[in-house]
């Protein structure tokens, strides 16, 4: 049962509480923590630091070509920002399909990353886009960590309890690049990824794949890169056959599990599909073609 509650308005105040109170845990929108407590999966922490009033964590902008957003940035902002849609499209794809309008307006990017769910929507896009988080703790200054290294297991991160995720920085993509995030979903909203794939594709002057990054959702304890798929792509013509081959390479290396949402067999097979579709969408965007956001509905032929 929660005994202590604080809602500081400054970052230093919040960091001070987190440093002084070892039981204290931050809460932003609460969309994950409170649900887990209500379902009896994990009780609310003994001490809560509500960070939602800290203006220093609620900023958004493009700095030197990089997307720099505070940890309190909502999915709704990411989904609606023309900058994100233009430069970091996969992130917009992901943010726009998180939960419902309420989830998107309340849930934050910081919370989504720190919750470390293997099904988190925004993580795979941030991994391929090279996102970096800034962590701060009282008296310890700050450190930066790639999003790819943040989660260490379901609900586990490489952070200390005193640290707060303050900023997410996403570098600009190279010219000739496009990105996309595709989720396999049984229904069109309120869904959790059965599997998902984010892709970043950079084309050379001949239209061949100069560089590619692929990250996978819901096939491992954390969101993972697919180096086998990436290796299969570089130097190839960007077409359906290479996308599929990359998907197969990713699937061959993946070790998905059976659970209530899907069998491992189906997940592995669907990995081929979502990787190929993410690559197709990212490549189309790299070519300057307009692919609607979110790309999932377009990719699954579900636009009506």
């Amino acid at each position, binding site marked *: 049962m929660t005994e202590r509650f604080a809602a500081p308005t400054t970052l230093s105040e919040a960091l001070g509480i987190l440093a002084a109170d070892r039981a204290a845990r931050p809460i932003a929108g609460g969309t994950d923590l409170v649900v887990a407590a209500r*379902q009896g999966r994990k009780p609310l922490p003994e001490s809560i630091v509500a960070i939602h009033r800290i203006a220093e964590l609620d900023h958004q902008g493009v700095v030197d070509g990089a997307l720099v957003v505070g940890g309190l940035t909502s999915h709704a902002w990411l989904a609606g920002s023309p900058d994100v849609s233009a430069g970091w499209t996969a992130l917009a794809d992901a943010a726009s399909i998180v939960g419902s309008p309420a989830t998107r307006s309340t849930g934050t990017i910081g919370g989504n990353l720190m919750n470390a769910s293997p099904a988190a929507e925004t993580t795979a896009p941030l991994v391929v886009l090279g996102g970096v988080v800034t962590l701060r703790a009282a008296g310890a200054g700050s450190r930066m960590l790639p999003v790819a290294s943040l989660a260490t297991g379901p609900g586990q991160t490489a952070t200390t309890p005193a640290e707060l995720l303050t900023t997410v920085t996403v570098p600009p993509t190279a010219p000739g690049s496009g990105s996309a995030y595709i989720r*396999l979903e*049984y*229904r*069109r*909203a*309120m*869904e*959790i990824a059965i599997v998902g794939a984010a892709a970043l594709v950079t084309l050379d002057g001949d239209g061949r794949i100069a560089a590619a990054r692929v990250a996978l959702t819901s096939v491992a304890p954390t969101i993972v890169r697919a180096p086998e798929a990436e290796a299969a792509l570089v130097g190839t013509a960007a077409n359906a056959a290479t996308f599929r081959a990359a998907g197969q390479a990713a699937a061959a290396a993946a070790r998905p599990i*059976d*659970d*209530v*949402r*899907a*069998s*491992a*067999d*189906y997940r592995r*097979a*669907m990995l081929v*599909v979502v990787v190929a579709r993410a690559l197709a969408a990212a490549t189309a965007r790299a070519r300057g073609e307009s692919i609607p956001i979110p790309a999932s509905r377009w990719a*699954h*032929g*579900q636009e*009506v």
Partner: protein
Amino acid sequence: MSPAAARAAPWIRGDGQAKATGQARYTADLAFPGLAHARLLLAGRAHARIVRLDTTRARALPGVLAVLTQDDVPKRRYGSFDLVLDRTLFARDRVRFEGEVVAAVAALTPELAAAAIAAIEVEYEDLPPILDVEIALESGSPLVHPEIDSYRHDPNLAPTGNVAGRSTIVKGDATVALAAAPVVIRERYVADMAHPVPIEPHTVTADWAGDRVTIYSSTQVPFAARAKTAEVLEIPEHRIRVVVTHLGGGFGGKCDFHFEGHVAALARAARRPVRLVLSRREEFIAPDKVTHAMVVDLETGLAEDGTILARKARVLLDCGAYASDTPTIGQVAAMMIAGPYRIADVDIEALSVYTNRTPSGSVRAPSGPQACWAVEQHHDVLAARVGLDPVAFRRKNLVHDGDEGPTRQRHEGDGAIDTLERAVERIAADGALGPNEAIGVASGWWFSAPGPSGAFVRIESDGSGRIVTGAQENGTGAVMALPILAAEELGMRPEEFAITYQDTDTGPYDGGSSGSQTTFNNGRAVVEAARDVKRQLLELAAVALEASVADLELRDGHASVVGSPDRRVSIAELATTAHSGALLLARGSGVPPEAPEHDASACVGRLGFESFASPTFFCHAVRIRLDPETGIVRVLKVVAATDVGRVLNRIGALGQLTGGVVMALGNATTEGTVYGADGRQRNASLLDYKLLTTADGPEIEAIFVEHPASNGGPRGSKGVGEPPIVPTAAAVANAIAIAAGVRVRRLPMTPERVWRAVTTGDDGATEVNAPFGPRAAAVEAAVAAAGPDRR
């Protein structure tokens, strides 16, 4: 207002404004001074012997007001409709499903109640769960109810082994006819369990005053809830009052008696009002009303030209741990497998089989969607075998006016054919199919349910009307639409009527919101009462206008002389007159229409559905798009044509239709209960038990065909609440088969199952490789059955 004008006027439900403003009080919204909070201890395991049950620590906790087990209530078994008296209020020696109630507590706060539950000590000896109906039927299978032979039961049933009930629908000699048929196809279809999922979870509050208790319950059947509470607690029925304030949906999940007895007993012990509200997880596993898992084996013989000659079938209904009303539904399932088709020889058997799963029951059109999904796919397979398209096959075989049904009842009207033609015409109107798109159709029927029902109608001193009814409004608007019927009789406007309803102390008996019966039966009662009031008004008017009753009519709020509309007196004036003398007051119930003439002499397990009274006919046509790589099916459009006899309230009928279709589509594609090998539900949450969202809803076009029934409800109407859910999954299945080139014989047709069918040809009917499929679970359980696992 003329009857036609009354029907055309926009209808605004009487409870609508309260609901739109948040002022409508549902059961959980009611406040009581000193209210205590209940919580149930559920078994949490599918099958176990209770070795030790100790509530001492729980009782000793501060703030705990009552802790009850079976030792604290009368020792008696009960059962739905007294079909099989196979259960007790609390589990005593043995738990038979995960959600079975072992104990109940009342405490000052919900948190204290939870703590008390945690303090109850139970030691179980786990037994291997029986999770598969076919394994349950094997000789030597462990019994879900070892004492079954001592249970009292309906004389038409002979429960034995793991079979709670057996019913057959038999006409002619199907064995002989099949042997002679030039074309015979055998198929198996398997449906998983599904849930009703009302958005309001079950809620019950009990409040005692002396030896009388008022139970506020989210029930669809207040009178049944009262009767069973009386029975299990051994309290005279007249000391129990069941009140439903507003009900947040039911879909059959709130039929039957659920927790009223537990909460009434708790409140009596706690000496204060006690409220129970189920969590969503509990709502999934504990209220024993889920859609039946079914195994359907079909064998149909055809002539070369595609005429159906004969059908044999066996339907296994998984009734779960307790029989509930499943034996009755087995008989319904058998009728649904026969369908509204001309078949000379029929031999259909339905078995209600016990397993260690959540008990099934009368969820919206129970057995209908699964049976229709199986048999209508079967019909497409048969059609293809003889080179007929699905529509031509149905045209050839569906019943027409005067044709005989599976027990020789005579069909009335061409509703089956007309709904087919209209649905097909409209679905084709949307133009050419795109890639991976297909159209599927399915036809079917469903019964109306004649039964006793009563209402009072009175005219108040100000000339307004009031209907006092025992009928129950579960959201469909059926009770809210009763004023339309009374107003038509009395020449008044529907909005001039108030309704007092769903209170067992106030209204006469009604069967509750089940079986699409409210308008059919309570409508009849209201019409009869209104006609009596009309007679009383005209007698008063005859005096006032110095005219003969025979020359008078009621219209526009007045009694007037036919042909001389200026010679009139208002109903309000007549009401004033009446209130100084004989009041304008009437009762009605009418006589429930009799079942159609039929011959069920060859049938066994007869429980009242040997014929279908005033059946509703329907056909749904759907247009889908399949993503063949993922197996995801998107339903683009549904045309739902229904012969409801007569549309009494268009907006209400439409709402039943659009709602039924989307519920059916969820059942068809994304829902389905998933069990682990341990017999516990793995998807008891709304994230993993996936109802369709607004974003998934297709365009729905409703077509009403009106062939009034001569022995139907008011004005020839037939049941409208359940039919819309019946054929949609079947139509989707037939469309999938066309788009995919392969058939899926497992319901729900999840993306993974469709994908598996597309990639491997596995139709799912013998699915063993799904991680949590019930058959896989049964295999795992059989392995685990080597010896009881003491934990």
